[in-house]
């Protein structure tokens, strides 16, 4: 049991990151594509479709941070110091995204806050891509401390990751737009999905080739028997979801593309984390060296086992209450 705890926490961490990427991913994707709409009124419809849920979605990031801090304290500060510039960029992007909804409601001139929503979302996505890419490409560590430079996160790999993350969020956002809106805005979502999905897929492929070239251990699990169930199998299933999403859009389905996009992300994450496990900070820091003491991991596990189902339940309740097409006004036209 003691041996298993760090692995369990790695899986929980992956699950929270997955939830964040899917849920805030579509919020941010809606923000990014809102930069391309015809006028500010359409942007208003897009923002209204997120009004009641974006803050709960962002909370998964708070949770993600809290869990690394608690379960892998040796990783938290180390990685954040290494990724200082992209993380500050992300925070600035999130600040503008967060205030844009209410500020736009009160502003006489709506446009600047609509743009703050769009650019804030884009800055957040790009920064997250650089941070994630910077982490996966490897972090310079000497005796437990970060000893690299402030620009170490910048590499061809992280540039590709940033582009792929933007593409992925656009894909999530557009399928959400198809589901939640109607008329020309939904048509716009339909056109954007292919672009986002294409960029995300190509970027992911290029990243995989680069990463396997640098870290041969990544491909070792592909052929081993238990490992391949968690790497190759989800990879193939992910491709299947991807194809089904494109097909569903062509057939004019409204909810299915969004569901397929979520499945695609799910399988992608399973494959990615199974490949890297037990490495948590490449090139060589493992979950076992960085995990908190067993007592902490166990008490947090109990808290999460109780809280997570409740959290998911009322998140679902919230989506259920605001189900259906958005009306374009936050307060239901009063």
């Amino acid at each position: 049991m003691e041996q298993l705890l760090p692995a369990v926490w790695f899986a929980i961490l992956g699950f929270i990151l997955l939830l964040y990427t899917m849920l805030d991913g579509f919020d941010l994707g809606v923000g990014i594509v809102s930069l391309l709409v015809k006028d500010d009124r359409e942007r208003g419809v897009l923002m209204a479709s997120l009004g009641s849920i974006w803050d709960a979605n962002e909370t998964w990031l708070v949770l993600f941070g809290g869990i690394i801090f608690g379960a892998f304290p040796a990783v938290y500060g180390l990685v954040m110091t290494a990724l200082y510039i992209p993380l500050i960029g992300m925070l600035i992007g999130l600040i503008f995204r967060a205030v844009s909804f209410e500020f736009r409601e009160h502003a006489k001139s709506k446009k600047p806050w609509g743009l703050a929503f769009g650019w804030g979302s884009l800055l957040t996505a790009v920064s997250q891509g650089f941070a994630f890419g910077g982490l996966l490409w490897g972090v310079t560590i000497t005796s437990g401390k970060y000893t690299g430079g402030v620009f170490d996160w910048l590499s061809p790999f992280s540039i590709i990751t940033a582009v792929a993350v933007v593409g992925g969020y656009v894909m999530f956002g557009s399928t959400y737009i198809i589901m939640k809106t109607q008329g020309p805005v939904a048509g716009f979502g339909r056109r954007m999905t292919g672009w986002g999905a294409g960029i995300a897929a190509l970027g992911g492929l290029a990243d995989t080739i680069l990463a396997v070239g640098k870290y041969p251990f990544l491909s070792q699990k592909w052929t081993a028997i238990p490992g391949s169930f968690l790497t190759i199998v989800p990879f193939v299933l992910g491709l299947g979801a991807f194809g089904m999403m494109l097909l569903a859009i062509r057939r004019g389905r409204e909810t299915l593309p969004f569901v397929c996009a979520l499945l695609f992300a799910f399988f992608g994450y399973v494959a990615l984390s199974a490949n890297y496990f037990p490495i948590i900070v490449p090139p060589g820091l493992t979950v076992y060296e960085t995990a908190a003491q067993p007592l902490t991991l166990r008490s947090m596990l109990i808290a999460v086992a109780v809280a997570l189902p409740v959290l998911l339940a009322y998140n679902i309740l919230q989506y259920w209450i605001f189900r259906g097409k958005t009306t374009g006004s936050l307060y239901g036209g009063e």
Partner: protein
Amino acid sequence: MSVFTDTLLLSRLQFGMTTLYHMIWPTLSVGLSLTLVILEALWLRTGDPAWYRHLRFWSRLLLLNFSVGVATGLVMEFQFGTNWEPFTEATGGFFGNILGLEGTLAFMLEAGFLGIMMFGWRKVPRGLHMVSTVLVAFGASLSAFWILVANSWMQTPAGGHFEHGRFVVDNFLGALFNSDMITSTTHMWAACIETTAFVVGGISAWYILRGRQPEFFLRTLKVAVVLALVMTPLQIFLGDAQGLHIYRTQPEKLAAMESHWKTNPPGAGAAFNIIAWPDNAGERNSFEVQVPYLLSLLETRSFTGQVKGLSEFAPDARPPVVIPFYSFRIMVLIGFLLFGLMVWTLVVWLRGGLALSRIRTRRALLRAWMWSLPLGYIAVETGWLAREEGRQPWLIYRVLRTADAVSSLPPWVVGMSLLALFAIYALLTVFFLIYAARMLSKGPDLSLVPPGEGS
């Protein structure tokens, strides 16, 4: 050592700025969400649509306030990792755990039900709406609780031991119920409600003074007075308890807050400095205006009780004096001013002066309420300054020095992020004030029909 080349100083400035700025917003979120619970209960009980309209009016202010709070709160969580790497590594086992619990158990509750509370009026039944409002308020208060647990543990660490520089928890409840926890969580929670009472009362007074819907806003003024009636004396009591606790557990912080240098000899009382200016090199005050015996009386409840002076502590273990001393005095002064305003209002009320026909003749009283609107915030900010500056040079009291806990980053990078965040906070403040002022000058929508009635 210059501001531009010192990563430690820049990181401290950035943390202090972000913390002091962030704190403004949850202070109101905690208090106002509880006020909304009261308003919604009043509406459900009386069926009076005026309470429903109040609910809608004040919840807009809450949402505007909340969005800035969320935006700045994320920076709080991340900067522990970005700027204080050794601290996170040393304390993750407990401190990180608590922040994780805050996110899981509290913030998610608040953010999750806020959407239903704000936008679900016509989508959920009244009962479920009331539940949502209660959960938002509960989530906000619980969130403040966890944050204060984490901070109080930095003041009085307990429940474990340090092994190779890392905190190992032996007893989770012992760490949770560290000796400062009860006094500081209650003091801060009361501060949130007290500040909100004077924000709600101040805004209501402003409307009444202008003759805009005086009947409507007299209702919330009275709600604010009732809140103040409970909170202002309670807060003086809780503040005193906090002071006594600091005397017992962090004597050098108390001495700094009082600019008290020499321990009083047996049989003599320690004097209280009303005003003073410290001379750090000479270990005395350059000037002081004192009340004899009062400091001993306050801290020990005896005229000659011993109060340790700063000279007892090694110079490199002493907190700075000016900031704790003055910010503490400002906070206390505000506490008594607000208590006085409450007493004044109560006397007027008992004489029938808050009746609708007479309230507008009480212009001085209404103005006093209006001008006291920012006072609660100032008390919260100065209180935190005294608390955190008074803990220096330690980050975790007598365990980890602030200077040893900073990430090694080039100063220019921290300088840039400090400037960028400063500019953004300034921008947010300007627009928040513009939009809040616009919302208030537009006033409440008195034509709103409660859900399920009429249209």
